[in-house]
């Protein structure tokens, strides 16, 4: 297994991302990862807060139109995240913190799909205040994203630290 991880991080592309002094290598990949986080978590947090009762005068239904931005951010991060793991596979994939982050993201995405079905497909949307169930989902969503950001940030500090400190 370790052989495979070493092979992954020593492919031409991984080595280029890791060692190139070009701004288009590591810096831009990580920049896109940060912008993607802003888009994905930002939009998700806005929706969650509205469900929780912030900005009660705002109609909730049109918020669904923001989902493409959220998914754009998510896929930006899925792609750049994969590159960032590849270029440091042997330490990232053996770091428990990395799996904590992945679990948080998985939970956040599953939760988001439930919110989409339960809240946005509800014919009563905007006619009655958000149900307790919806509020619990929204609070969980904020918690999962907070967990993902914290675990992600700590990847630079926990375990065999590498990358941007």
């Amino acid at each position, binding site marked *: 297994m370790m052989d495979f991880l070493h092979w992954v991080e020593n492919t031409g592309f991984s080595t280029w991302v890791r060692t190139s002094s070009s*701004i288009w290598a*590591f*810096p831009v990949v*990580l*920049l896109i990862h*940060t*912008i993607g*986080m*802003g*888009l994905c*978590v*930002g*939009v998700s*947090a*806005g929706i969650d*807060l509205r469900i929780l009762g*912030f*900005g*009660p*005068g*705002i*109609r909730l*239904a*049109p*918020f*669904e*139109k*923001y989902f493409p*931005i959220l998914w754009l951010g998510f896929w930006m991060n899925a792609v750049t995240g994969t590159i960032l793991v590849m270029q440091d596979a042997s330490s990232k994939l053996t770091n428990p913190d990395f799996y904590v982050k992945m679990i948080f993201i998985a939970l956040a995405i599953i939760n988001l799909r439930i919110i989409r079905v339960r809240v946005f497909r509800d014919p009563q949307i905007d006619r009655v205040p958000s149900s307790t169930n919806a509020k619990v989902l929204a609070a969980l969503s904020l918690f999962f*994203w*907070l967990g993902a*950001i*914290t675990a992600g*940030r*700590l990847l*630079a*500090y926990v375990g065999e630290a590498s990358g*941007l*400190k």
Partner: protein
Amino acid sequence: MESLNLAHAHLLLNHLPTIGFGMGLAIYIAAYFAKNDHLKKAGLVIFFLVAVMAIPTYMTGSAAERVLCPELKCPADVSVPMIRKHEDAALIAFVLMEITGFFSWLALWQLRRTPKIPSINRVGVLLLSVISFGLMALAATEGGEIRHTEIREKLEAAATPGAAAGPEAAAPAPAPTPEGAAAPGAAPTTEPSAAPAAATAAPPAPAEEEHQGIARSIGSAVAGNTGIGWLWPAFETIHFVGLCMLFAVVLMVDLRILGMAKGLSFQSLYQLLPFGMLGFILNLATGMGFFLAAPGQYVHNVEFHRKIVFVVLAGINVLYFLLFDEAWKIGPNDDAPFRSKAVAAVTIFLWLGILYYGHMLPFLGNSF
């Protein structure tokens, strides 16, 4: 050597918080008693803009110190304790000024939704601005004394009559490095703790910190020098959370103006603005933590200069949404006027720019 360095920038900017706030205060107090709402609004705008400009003012101060004292060694005629004193006074005034700026912004935000500012905030801004102005004037005076030794000597001579030797005797004393000044004070304080055979390298540290002042102490705590190693990573995490909060609002409001989710009116999304401001406050607080922890990483970092210029521009930019009527009139399913769309695009551009420059600090600049 370039003709204009950051010390000059500090000299240019440092009059702004005191004079600007003085003007704002005069206008606000006049409006308060004349019950003139337009004038009051003008005072609030000035408070907010001066609070925004206080950010580069504070930061160029650290740069000025490095120009004055290259390699952290100050020449004999520059007093280190005096710089520390000015830095602390400036930091306290800065914090108060940012709080005033926030509540002024909040009052402007409230004015859109209600015809009158709620009285608690009206009085709050008045009190905060008076305190900020006093503290800033104090900080400015102490800052002026660093280089204008002639004021200092006159003041000291006046305080101790007949002691012309006073300033001369005082002048050489601060010249040596902080260790020299801290050593005599350290001896008595280490005595009690040294008794239980714990006389390792640790005891001298507290005495030196005492000499450092507030700004340096906060800085070294965030940098992890006081043993709280998780503080810097925690600040970074909060900085990212603040970023997400800010982006949530920037994206939702500005993308709506640009034509996404048209079912929402601007007035309803307007309710989200204070939430974005909260994100900014988190980032200003944690960002100042980084700056105090490692000023050397930032003061000579061009990417950081650009970031702060963008922050100032974004500060001016947010006023559009509070003060102009055209955005306010965008109802459900309305197409926004061109100028609103242009400003919305600029807003997104500015915040992406701030994210870009912040992100590139370690790659293009000299931060770690």
